[in-house]
């Protein structure tokens, strides 16, 4: 706190917000206090410069129309995964592996299998690249849980 004005009150004052009574009090103080007046001017100039710089930064186009269209197409594909069994199968696989090998092992096994498949990550799994992922996971399950565990993973993961 500086001369009875907290940082929150300063911020409200400089942004033109805050209660009228507090603004009047600060106005009265600034009339008499050279140091606080200088600080207020300093911070006002800083904020103005920030806004000006940020405003020009904001105006710059980050993504072209073509890029936006392409990003939207990719989003449509991902949204469609919500309606297909891919996410459901992932959940089932995770549940099956958690039961047998624990939650950490299950999560790592799924990530490792995805990383070793063309999908590269769980988020990029689709119907098209599901098969290699499942084969990868099957290899892990066979080693950890034996033939029956591997069979469970295989059948749980069928789309």
């Amino acid at each position, binding site marked *: 706190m500086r001369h009875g004005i*907290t*940082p*929150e009150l*300063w*911020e*409200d004052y400089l942004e033109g917000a805050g209660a009228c009574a507090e603004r009047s009090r600060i106005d009265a103080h600034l009339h008499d206090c050279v140091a606080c007046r*200088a600080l207020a*001017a*300093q*911070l006002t*100039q*800083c*904020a103005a*410069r*920030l*806004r000006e*710089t*940020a405003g*020009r*930064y*904001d105006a*710059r*186009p*980050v*993504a*072209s129309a073509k890029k*936006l269209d392409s*990003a*939207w197409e*990719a*989003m*449509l594909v*991902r*949204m469609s995964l*919500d309606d297909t069994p891919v996410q459901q199968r992932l959940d089932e696989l995770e549940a099956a592996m958690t039961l047998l090998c624990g939650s950490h092992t299950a999560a790592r096994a799924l990530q490792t299998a995805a990383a070793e498949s063309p999908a590269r990550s769980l*988020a990029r799994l689709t119907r098209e690249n599901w098969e290699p992922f499942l084969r990868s996971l099957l290899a892990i399950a066979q080693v950890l849980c034996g033939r029956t565990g591997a069979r469970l993973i295989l059948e749980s993961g069928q789309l």
Partner: protein
Amino acid sequence: MDEQQAIESFLAQRDEETFCVLFKALYGRVFRYFLARGTDEMTAEELTQNVLLAVYRRAGEFRNQNLFRGWLFAIARNELLQHWRRNRARIRTVELDQLRERPVESNVAAAGMQLRLEFEEWLSALEPAERELAHLRFVEGLSYEELAAVFDAPSGTIKSRLFYLKQKLCRSAGLEAQIK
């Protein structure tokens, strides 16, 4: 349709058509946020997709329309934290010299890079958390309440942080000397 209308329209109907409009309105903001936090373009694209998909999936949970952008960037922040945890990545402080040395492919890219340099050069005096706050307040224009939602902190704390942040920027920009 402006951004606020796109938000209201999507929250009211929550269908693919309204989401498309919202997606195109918000994509640039979220993408820029991740770039400002030090990710590369490919990662920023992937994380932006994740964030907007989360918005689509979880729109039903959202209650206060006035805090939508706060909610949006809270999701973005969380997504970035999870990305770092998964990849054990750390914030890369992009050296300004490296930025200048990168080849420029188009006028848009050149102009954008210049603007980014100017803004980021000024913010380089701040800690990463302060830079994030400055970006969200001054570039994205989030209100105190929205920022409170993003950082899960009271509005008063956000205001204090902004006050100290500005003081720090003043010192680094030499504004103290100019005033005197």
